[in-house]
C-alpha cells in the first residue's frame, strides 16, 4: 500500500478535508487534515489500509497556532497533521482506536495544554504533581523569553 494510494483513499473518503501532501526528508509524507476528519481517517487506516503503528504525536507551537502531527508507519512514514487555534485547543482522543496513543496524548496535553476529549486519565505523566507554571512548550506563555 504505497503512499499515493493511501492519499487517494483518504481523498475519496474525506474529500477536501485532506490538504496538499508534502514529502519531507528521511522518507515521510505530511498530509494536512481537518481536525474533524481525524478520527475518520484513523478508522480508515485501521479498517481498510491496515495501518496500525502510531509512532507518536508531536505537539508544537509555531507562534500562530498549535500543530499536532500524528506520525504513522506502514513500511514508510505517513503523518496526519492537524492544527488547533490557541484559544480552542481541543482534539478528540484516539485511545479507543489506538490504546498506545494514551501516553502520547497525555504528554501533549501536559506540555501544550491541549484538552483531549474522552481521554480518561489526566494525571500528569512527566511533570511534577505541583507544577503550576503552565504548559512548558507553549511559546505564548513565555513570550518574554523566560528560563
Amino acid at each position: 500500500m504505497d503512499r499515493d494510494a493511501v492519499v487517494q483513499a483518504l481523498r475519496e473518503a474525506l474529500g477536501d478535508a485532506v490538504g496538499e501532501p508534502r514529502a519531507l526528508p528521511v522518507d515521510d509524507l505530511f498530509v494536512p487534515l481537518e481536525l474533524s476528519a481525524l478520527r475518520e481517517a484513523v478508522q480508515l487506516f485501521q479498517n481498510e489500509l491496515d495501518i496500525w503503528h502510531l509512532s507518536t504525536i508531536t505537539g508544537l507551537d509555531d507562534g500562530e497556532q498549535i500543530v499536532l502531527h500524528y506520525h504513522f508507519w506502514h513500511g514508510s512514514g505517513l503523518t496526519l497533521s492537524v492544527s488547533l487555534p490557541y484559544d480552542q485547543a481541543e482534539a478528540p482522543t484516539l485511545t479507543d482506536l489506538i490504546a498506545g496513543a494514551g501516553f502520547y496524548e497525555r504528554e501533549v496535553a501536559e506540555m501544550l495544554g491541549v484538552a483531549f476529549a474522552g481521554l480518561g486519565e489526566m494525571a500528569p505523566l512527566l511533570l511534577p504533581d505541583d507544577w503550576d507554571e503552565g504548559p512548558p512548550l507553549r511559546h505564548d506563555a513565555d513570550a518574554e523569553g523566560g528560563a
Partner: protein
Amino acid sequence: MDRMTIPIGPQHPLLKEPMSFNVTVEGERVLEATMRLGYVHRGIEKLAERRTYIQVVHLVERICGICSHVHTTTFCDAVESLLGLEVPRRAQYIRALLCELERVHSHLLWLGVLAKNVGFDTVFMYSWRDREIVLDIMEGLSGGRVSHAVNMIGGVRIDLDDEHVRGILERFDTLERQVDRALVLVEHERTLRARTQGVGVLTPEDVRRYCVVGPTARASGVDVDMRRDAPRPPYDELDVNVILHDAGDVWARTLVRTQETRESLRLCRNLLANLPEGPTAARARRRVPAGEAVARSEAPRGEVFYYVRSDGSDTPARLKVRTPTLPTLATLPGQLDGVAFADVPVVLAGVDLCIACADR
C-alpha cells in the same frame, strides 16, 4: 489475606532508575498496578530549543545511558537531511558499527538485570563480565565507555586504523564464544525457564493496539525491525535477519535479545570486513534551512523516533523524541494484573525498562 498496596519505587532494589509502581496485592496475587513517571524528566525537548544544533547533539546523547549513540545518530540523520548533506559512506559504516556494538552492550546489560531480578546472581555476574569486553572495545574506539561523543553533524569524529580493527576482531572471538554459551544457558537452564516461561505474556493484538516496538514486539511474533523496514545506509547493504519468536513471554524475549546479540556481532564483523575508504565527515553549516524532518532508527529497545523543526537559525525550533520504552511501558499495567507478586520483578525486567529514555 487482606488487600495490600505495595509500593515499588521510586527507590527499590528492583528498579535501576527512579520510577514508582503501586501494586495492589491480595495474598500473592496482583490485582492492579499503577505507574508514575517523571522522576528523571529533564525537559530535553525544552532545553533543545535553547541550544545550537552542535550542542543539541551532546544533549541528545545524554537522554539514555545505554543507547546514547543511536540517539545522536538519528538526530544527526534528521539534521543532515534538512541540510541536504551527503554523509561519507565510511562515516555511515562507523556509525552503524557503534550502533550494533551498543545493541550488544544493551542486551548483555539487560540479561544481567533480568538474572538479578530472578535471583540468579551468577548469570548477572557473568553477563556483566562479558559486557566489559564490548565496553572496552567502545572505549578504545571512541574514548568513552558509554557516552561516545562520536557523532557530529556531517559524520563522525573518530577513525579506525588496522590496529583498531585487529584489536576489535580479537575481542570478538571471546565475546562470541561467551554469547553462544549464554544462548545455551538461556535455552536450557531449568530454573531460569521456570521463572520466565509463561510470565508477562503479550499477545500480538496487544502489540498492535499499544504500538509496541523492538524485541518485546518481536518476541510476540510481530515482525518489525527498523534496520530492515527503513534501511538507512549502510543497512541497505547489510542483510539483517530479524529474530522472531511467538510465545510472547519473558522467556521468548530473553531468547530474542540473546540471539539478537549474536546477530549484531555478525553484522559488526560484516561492517568491519568491508569498511569503505574515504573521509569520515563532511563540513556542515551552522545554520539549518527552515523545514521539518522525521528520522527513525532501531535502538536496542526498538524504534526511536526523532522530529526536528528548524526555522533557519542555528537553534532548533522544536525537537520531538519518542523513545521505544514509552509504548512498552503502556502495556505494563495490563501485563501485571493477575500475575503472582513474585513475578512482578520478572515482568518489569522483561520489558527492558529504560526510564531515563521514557522520561526525557
